[in-house]
């Protein structure tokens, strides 16, 4: 069995992060959780990460900044955004941030999982 894909979750809501971590681990991913953007960047710098799942509003460093920082390092890293509210003027829907998908909370973990599979070129589950 090859090494599982490593997913970095940036989410300040501990219970949500825990549940998603549980779900994705159950589905065979290796998962690391960070409570904010700064922590997520540190993790990204120290470990090989295959995809990022991030919240937008977080203390210390928000999701938008985190994505910008990461895109500077890796233009192709799959990013899944989970957000409580997306402001109209957010430019995250723009092509230049791709590969990037946006979901509003409450999110369906199966959808997140399927999206990650698709973005990482893995077979889809039903």
């Amino acid at each position, binding site marked *: 069995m090859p090494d599982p894909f490593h997913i970095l979750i940036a989410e300040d809501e501990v*219970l949500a992060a825990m*549940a998603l971590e549980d779900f994705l681990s159950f589905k065979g991913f290796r998962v690391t959780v960070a409570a904010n953007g700064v922590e997520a960047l540190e993790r990204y710098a120290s470990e090989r990460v295959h995809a990022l799942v991030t919240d937008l509003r*977080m203390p210390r460093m928000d999701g938008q900044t985190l994505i910008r920082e990461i895109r500077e390092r890796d233009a192709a890293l799959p990013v899944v955004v989970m957000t*409580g509210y997306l402001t109209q003027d957010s430019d995250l829907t723009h092509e230049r941030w791709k590969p990037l998908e946006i979901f509003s909370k*409450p999110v369906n973990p*199966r959808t997140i999982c399927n999206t990650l599979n698709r973005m990482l070129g893995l077979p889809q589950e039903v």
Partner: protein
Amino acid sequence: MAVGLEEFLDTGGFVPHGVCLLWRPDILMLHVASDVLIGLSYFSIPVALTYFVIRRRDVAFGWMALLFALFIIACGTTHFLSIWTLWTPDYVLEGLVKLVTAFASLATAAALWWLMPRLLALPSPRELEASNRALALEVATRREMEARYSSFFNNLGEALFIVQVLPDGDFAYEAINPALARIGGLDPEQLRDRRVRDAVAPELADLVIPRYTACRDSGETIDYEETLDMPAGQRVFHTMLVPVKDAAGRVIQILGSGRDVTERKRLQEEVVQTSKLATLGTLAAGMAHEMSQPLNVIRLWTENTLTRLHENLLDPARAERALKLVIEQTDRMGKLIDHVRTFGRRDGGGMRAFHPAHCVESAVELVRHQYALEDIEIVEHAGLAQLPVTGRPLELEQVILNLFSNARDAIVARRASGEAAGRIMVAVSDDPDRQSVVIQVTDDGGGIDPSVLPQIFDPFFTTKEVGKGSGLGLSIGYGIIDGMGGRIEARNVELESGSRGVRFTITLPSQPVSSSDREFSHA
């Protein structure tokens, strides 16, 4: 004696006067015609005079006119006797008539001189006319003034009334204007001169008599706001009572005016409500985020559980943990919903006793998470705060929330200029003398320009860009605190960390709370 008189009247020895005229018919005719004309004229004058005196009953010295009449009749008679004596030598009779005439003339002349000063004192027709004209002018002026004042009294929308202070100190209505009659459903005629207690409903009398008494006893103008039940519904009046005193300084009358401020009051409440809704609007965005969080947790945990259930990998302990988590999250949402609901509600209820610390806590709870996301920390400094205050808890919470949102705006602005900021400190404590409660909200957002500091409580004063600030927050907050009998002040402070900011201090008087309303509640 009788014989003597007859002898005296005997004219046997005389010749008629015509003899002297040699019976010349032309001379006789001349005398007769002239005397007849004179006599008739003389006789007609007293008739005219008497007629005048009778018709003009008010004529001064009417008896004088009658005296004149007598005198003129006598004169007339002498002329007729002159004709008579042309043919009949009744000279004695003629002499006697002349004697009578002489007395009448003398009396008339004497009376005339005697009356002269008083006759002169009588106003001449021209004087009369002038004084009449002056009088007419005065009457016109007064009429005009009365018309002007009565139209003022009758047409002014303000309720006006005049209360008489009776010798026994009680009050009676002297007059009320149509506006008051209309608003109060009162009949001015029925009210006139009736004692207040008899004239209006007992509940109304109980409300107004103490005010009249206060005005009567102090002898000073008083004004106050009162809510009265009127036929047209409950109305709020701003009433003013002005005492009118007699020479001895006793209040004999009270002039009252009442302005119906019901509409203005309603608008004021409307403004408070609007700003509350505006605050709610800014909170709504944060609220959407707040709500999506527990929903998200619920969704994730139920999906997790469901997946494990499908795979037959769900152990009871895990299921229980997930379900408990879900319940907790629904609680969290329920609280948020409650909060929004109560906050948006019109806080029209009465004032009541409550602990301000609860409001502060509640406000902090509402924004803490949202602010944390923006890296703004709310630090609570719990002092000893046990005293209750009186007011509407939700309104106080609104004031505090607005202080928080101002602090947040200041912090965000300070950061935008490259400086570090991000702390809001809030403290509630009882005053050392235990008379009042002090709430302080301090930020490190850089402070307020001293030149605008005096204006920040003015309505619509804002330094924020259009759409960001309404400038109403602090002015409404001021009104709310003022309504609770307290005060709110702002000053710039230097913090220990070296940064600068603003400290808002709210001081609320603590009323001793009677045991009956010791039921505290908080929003």
